[in-house]
């Protein structure tokens, strides 16, 4: 009787608002908390720039916006590969899904390689995490983001193994979050005067 009542309540309640989220709801808990953390760090960066505009202008001049633009192209293209992998997983085509995930991972790895070479150049030009507020916040923000890119690649490899639709959607949601954060970080850190 109680089972029948519970079933009836489920039918009457309809789909939960969480059902409209792609992937596993727990991943979205992580995504929203990561967005909050990056939002706070980007706000701190902007406030610090308002306090010390000259120091931030000097720091920005040591960065290479073209390398960062190349990284943006890598992440945007890898996000597209991840979205294509989701579509293939829904069509239950595991081989195609794995190919798109491999493409997303390759482009993500290119992002990591470009970012590390960028760090090497910047450190060679005398910019290190202790060389002022700009440098500290720059390395904190981009380094934290870089860790998320590496974690995202690991998650994509893990979900690509079985290539089930829910798993691929969950991994792709994390990857798109990494993409979304970079799309905001890139102009704020590298381009704004």
């Amino acid at each position, binding site marked *: 009787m109680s089972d029948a009542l519970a079933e009836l309540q489920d039918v009457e309640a309809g789909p939960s608002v969480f059902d409209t989220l792609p992937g596993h709801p727990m991943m979205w808990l992580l995504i929203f908390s990561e967005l909050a953390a990056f939002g706070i760090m980007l706000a701190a960066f902007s406030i610090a720039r308002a306090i010390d505009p000259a120091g931030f202008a000097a720091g920005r001049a040591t960065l290479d916006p073209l390398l960062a633009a190349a990284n943006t192209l890598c992440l*945007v293209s890898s996000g597209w590969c991840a979205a294509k992998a989701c579509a293939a997983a829904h069509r239950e085509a595991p081989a195609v899904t794995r190919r798109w995930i491999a493409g997303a991972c390759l482009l993500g790895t290119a992002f990591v390689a470009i970012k590390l070479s960028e760090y090497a150049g910047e450190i060679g030009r005398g910019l290190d995490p202790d060389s002022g507020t700009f440098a500290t916040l720059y390395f904190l923000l981009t380094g934290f983001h870089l860790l998320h890119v590496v974690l995202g690649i690991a998650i994509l490899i893990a979900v690509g193994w079985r290539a089930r639709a829910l798993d691929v959607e969950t991994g792709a949601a994390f990857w798109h979050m990494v993409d979304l954060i970079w799309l905001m970080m890139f*102009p704020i850190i590298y381009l704004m005067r």
Partner: protein
Amino acid sequence: MLLHRREQTLVVLLLLTSCGVASTLSPLAALAGGVLLMVLAIIKARLVVLDYFGFRSAAGPWRSILLAWVVAVAATSLVPMTVSFFR
């Protein structure tokens, strides 16, 4: 041949990224340049939310929450230019 929406989104994202980098070469004032960059960033982020996350047809508050985060970050980033402008 017409491109599918996801492919169109990729092309637009790549073009807007190039436009953003090119705009920094223009003699726009810091505030105007900053506003232009943030408008481009919001458009790109909106496309990612709608076509990569797949929220174009999603009901519920999720799309609004993600877009509110984007707009809040963009607005906060314009604070330094606004302060300099009114100084």
